[in-house]
């Protein structure tokens, strides 16, 4: 099977790699996150409609933002608990 649009294929690989890098720090562990990430991408492997691929990439971008926000909040809350005295 040859990909119809190589540019889109590259974009998918790029966002997959970025997510893979991001979940190294996942609170439940890399071993938890990596298979799930892989499964999520593999479940979409058969999609060949360009519009659908684009919306899939958008969803991946959204997940990336969510994970970044999760990390930020987790750290912010931990530090707040340690350093801010709440009466």
């Amino acid at each position, binding site marked *: 099977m040859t990909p119809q649009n190589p540019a889109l294929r590259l974009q998918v690989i790029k966002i997959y790699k*970025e997510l893979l*890098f*991001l979940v190294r720090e996942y609170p439940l562990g890399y071993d938890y996150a990596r298979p799930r990430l892989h499964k999520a991408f593999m479940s979409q492997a058969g999609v060949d409609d360009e519009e659908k691929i684009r919306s899939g990439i958008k969803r991946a971008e959204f997940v990336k933002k969510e994970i*970044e926000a999760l990390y*930020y909040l987790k*750290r912010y809350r*931990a*530090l707040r608990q*340690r350093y801010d005295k709440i009466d």
Partner: protein
Amino acid sequence: MSSLRILVPIKRVIDYAVRPRVNKTNTAVETAGVKHSMNPFDELSIEEAVRLRERKSTPVEDILAFSAGPAKSQDVLRTAMAMGADRGMHVLVDVDKTGDLEPLGVAKLLRKVVEDEKRNLVILGKQSIDDDSAQTGQMLAGLLGWSQATQAAKVEIEGDVITVTKEVDGGVETVKAKLPMVITTDLRLNEPRYASLPNIMKAKKKPMVKKTLEEMGVDVKQRLKTVKVEEPAPRKGGQKVEDVDGMIAKLKELGAI
């Protein structure tokens, strides 16, 4: 109108999510084989420096990230450059030989860097999450004779006048000063961006200067002696009482009534 030449000193510390363990001899915290990352307060200062540039009100000429510590400190410098610092400078400290740096030693090192690199703004984290000294920024401002704003929650700049909103007990305090200036960051200053993979790759091409302590020619002799390091006492669990009389008896026993 002068442009900003910012220095952001950063420290590599034990990751905030790791539970620190005291070593067997009760002299320090175990660091071998423990995950390290950039001090979270220093991430805030990098982010603020980058945001000052993005705000475009006063031009930022250069953002220099600085770290003193073991060779692995270069990793956190790369992270800082991935977040937006232009250059890095690493001073190698052989902890086995000279011991850990103390706030005064670091402040003197930073004074040297400020003078050599002609900085006019230093943004530091208010404290590191390992030593929790919260002294370096203040000492640096004292050594340089510059204005200082600690625990910044908001930084506004107009020309060469900086207005900083500081977090103080029970409220905020607003101070205004002209450059040059030392600012230390508090938790609510901004939301640091995540150093993404492509940016980390790009950061590998940014210049990093490596120096040794001897080259800096600064007296970093240890003046403090760590007497003992202990884990905090474990929390005692609560107790259930049968009835009101039981509770009163217990309170009396504890001397509460």
